[in-house]
């Protein structure tokens, strides 16, 4: 994968497969401490201790169609190549939290990439999940929660063209707003 946004999409897919109906994605860019932190937290079925112990092993997967799962090992390797750390916490019946920390300025750190595209794919493509996105760049933050949007829509689907456009603009503007201040400094 060429972007961290694609890793986020991939990990969030695991959360959906685990039956989560609330998934929170957080990105923190901290230039002062030179850190980039990504966290995906869900309320899915979680994993038992054995599965958790083996989850970063590329030959373990919960899927039955193929015997190897590469998503989590890829993400872990991406963080560790950049002087970073990788952690998974999971409790059966409660959910899973995946956290990857990167050295922000590391030469091998992948770009964040198309975060907006990843979020739109998840929000529009899996409307039964409550998506929360928090993006912090130093002191500024953008928080997106699709719950009020769905309440306002009251039955009108997210894949309605004007609604999709609205969601796209809301996310694009939010991300741009947080980033602009860094650029103007």
């Amino acid at each position, binding site marked *: *994968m060429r972007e961290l946004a*694609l890793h986020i*999409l*991939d990990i969030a*897919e695991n959360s*959906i*497969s685990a039956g989560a109906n609330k998934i929170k994605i957080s990105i923190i860019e901290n230039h002062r401490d030179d850190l980039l932190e990504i966290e995906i937290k869900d309320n899915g079925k979680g994993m038992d201790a054995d599965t958790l112990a083996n989850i970063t092993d590329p030959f373990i997967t919960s*899927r039955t*169609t*193929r015997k190897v*799962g*590469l*998503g989590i090992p*890829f993400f872990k390797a991406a963080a560790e190549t950049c002087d970073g750390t990788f952690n998974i916490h999971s409790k059966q019946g409660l959910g899973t939290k995946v956290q990857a920390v990167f050295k922000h300025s590391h030469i091998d750190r992948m770009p964040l990439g*198309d975060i907006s*595209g*990843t979020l*739109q*794919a*998840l929000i*529009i*493509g*899996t409307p039964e999940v409550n998506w929360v996105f928090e993006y912090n760049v130093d002191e500024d933050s*953008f*928080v*997106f929660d699709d719950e*009020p*949007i769905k309440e*306002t*829509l*009251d039955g*009108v*689907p997210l*894949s*309605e*063209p*004007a*609604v*999709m*456009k*609205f969601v*796209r*603009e*809301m996310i694009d*503007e*939010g991300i741009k*707003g947080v980033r602009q201040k860094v650029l103007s400094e």
Partner: protein
Amino acid sequence: MSTVKSLDDLKKIREEALKKQQLRETSGKTEVIVGMGTVGIAAGARETLKAIMDMIANEDLNDIIVRQTGNIGLDSYEPIVVVAVPGEDKVNYGKVNPEMARRIIKDHVIDGKIVSEYQIQG
């Protein structure tokens, strides 16, 4: 929320959408599903899905439900797009890039003609 877009804007959008819906007959909605497993994502499935969503938003295409799903189990054909027209057999398309996706929406979803050269055979 600190964006220019507000929920009031969304309320207006909702009312417009409901008005339009009343004008249309309830013929059921076509589902367009994109496989989004690890292999699909690595092969470009997000760009394929984005192209479909952008086309629907920009060209104001109604009555299409876009969904994404996990691994479909046909790795060598990723990205995979499934088109499900109500009352018809599902059609699986393989190795769908954004340009192909736009053609599938135009020819199959809008005009009802299956794009057989992109179809996964078997």
